[in-house]
């Protein structure tokens, strides 16, 4: 009886939990994070160790098999997952944050500010992000760390958030209750907090999921091209190694296919969450 009442009062939460897409997505994401954190501890190998003969297919000793030279793929993948997830997460947070501010300023104040910010945003959107990332990475001096990578990825990613947040702000801003607040001389900060933020929270969260998705794909992509963090192991680096050693042609499919599969499943899960949340927050879609 108590549970029934709880659901009736938190209707949105109920729909979130009931939505299959969201729950499946969240389970997979949680699993992946656990894999990244606990995974490397499950094996006794180090990622750079030559642990046995190369060329070994997945077995009880080596769940993901070994590389050409004899390193354990599972350890490399789970450890690499840590790096890639971290870069994706940090980049996602930064770009969402920056994008929100810019998008909000453009949408709320309108006029010249809007025109300038939107021109900037459009320019960035037109320029192919990977090309820009490659150019920037090329000129970076010294070692590339996780932070630097996250930063340059967010540089190309924020325009998306800005655009989305701006249109949402415009829609909310023209609502009457916001206009009332503006007339009644409540401070801008309070208007943001009470009227606008509350309605945007779900939207921003969904945007963040998309940003996270884009960032991790960009991160692994750069790593794959050899432009990832210079130290340590990352998911893209595993794939690049597999490619450079002609893994597929030599039949060492587990080296190339498995790491990418992990990434794809993770990204699909994020996509599921996003679509599911869309259904929750847009009741019209629920009927579909």
């Amino acid at each position: 009886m108590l549970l029934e009442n709880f659901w009736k009062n938190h209707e949105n939460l109920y729909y979130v939990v009931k939505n299959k897409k969201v729950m499946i997505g969240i389970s997979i994401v949680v699993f992946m994070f656990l894999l990244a954190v606990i995974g490397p501890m499950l094996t006794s190998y180090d990622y750079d160790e030559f642990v046995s003969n190369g060329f070994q297919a997945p077995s009880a000793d080596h769940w993901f098999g070994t590389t050409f030279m004899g390193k354990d793929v599972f350890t490399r993948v789970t450890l690499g997952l840590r790096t890639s997830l971290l870069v994706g997460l940090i980049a996602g947070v930064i770009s969402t944050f920056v994008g929100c501010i810019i998008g909000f300023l453009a949408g709320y104040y309108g006029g010249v500010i809007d025109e300038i910010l939107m021109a900037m945003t459009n320019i960035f959107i037109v320029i192919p992000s990977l090309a820009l990332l490659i150019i920037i990475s090329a000129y970076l001096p010294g070692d590339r760390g996780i932070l630097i990578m996250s930063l340059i990825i967010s540089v190309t990613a924020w325009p998306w958030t800005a655009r989305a947040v701006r249109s949402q702000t415009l829609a909310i801003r023209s609502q009457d209750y916001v206009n009332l607040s503006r007339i009644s001389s409540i401070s801008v900060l309070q208007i943001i907090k009470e009227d606008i933020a509350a309605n945007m929270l779900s939207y921003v969260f969904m945007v963040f999921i998309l940003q996270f998705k884009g960032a991790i794909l960009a991160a692994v992509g750069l790593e794959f091209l050899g432009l990832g963090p210079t130290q340590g192991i990352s998911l893209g680096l595993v794939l690049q190694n597999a490619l450079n050693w002609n893994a597929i042609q030599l039949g060492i499919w587990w080296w190339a296919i498995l790491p990418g599969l992990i990434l794809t499943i993770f990204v699909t899960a994020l996509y599921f969450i996003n679509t599911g949340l869309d259904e929750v927050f847009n009741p019209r879609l629920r009927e579909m």
Partner: protein
Amino acid sequence: MRENILEVKDLKAYYKILKGDVKAVDGVTFNIKRGEILGVAGESGCGKSTLASTFITRKPPLQHISGEVNLLGEDIMQMKEKKFKKMRLKDISIIPQYALDAFSPTKKIRTFIADLVREHGISPDKKFFAKVEERLDMVNLDPSVLNRFSIELSGGMKQRVIMVISSILDPAFIIADEITSALDVSSQRFVATLLAKLRDEEIIGSAMFITHDLSILYQIADRIMVMYAGRIAEIGPTDEIVNNPKHPYTKALISSLPQVGVQYKDKKLSGIEGTPPHLLNIGDGCRFRFRCPYAEEVCTNTPVREKVAAGHYTACHRWRELGSDNND
């Protein structure tokens, strides 16, 4: 004796949601004769638009619970969708509340009309469009409108085009849902008289004119049905309702109308205090009793419909005692 085009018997339609049932239409009975314009008045949320939806398309979570709706003798609530689809536009039609947004932005008006009537087995040839142009002329629109996209038309023009389209196949019954609400006063007058004209020329057989604006109904409706919170408060000929209202709600509505020539300093506008009840899982009893100045113990029982005069009914326990005083 003109026949009944529409017979509604104890119709109930609820919105079934997670938290329970929103009893939006809860036991509604009335008829509409050929040649008649029935005005349906009431505050927002009283169920008038839900009534229209129940007739034309019941979109989940709106469900038909019980009761009959006989259109030209057949119960459309029990009719198979395939059969009823053929009746739409031909026998029953609607001028929707969202008329200004009822066009697809990428189709010309002409294409839209042609596609629609083709669905009903009518060939959109020269003869047909000659008739369309006649109707456009009737509403003071130039035939060039047909070659335009909706984006090129003003609000008033769109409204009139919709009226032409909805009545193009001369339906026996048409629902006009708040067709004047978004317009200025002179346009309101024009559109309302247009509806009456369509009825006079027998282009439409009968109409249900839904609005919250009683003064418009006074102009063109033959009978008025006052709804409150999903039920009929009072129904009767226009003159009766306006000059001899029996239900406290009707009385309050009438007296809250501004009178021409009377200024604020002479007589204050009286509104009705309070707001309509929330219809979620609402219980028995008169639903107006929370705002009614005459509510008493007996009002906790659901009132039954009682005859006041010929064709004039009301659902109130105390209507006899309260007389017909309009002044408060």
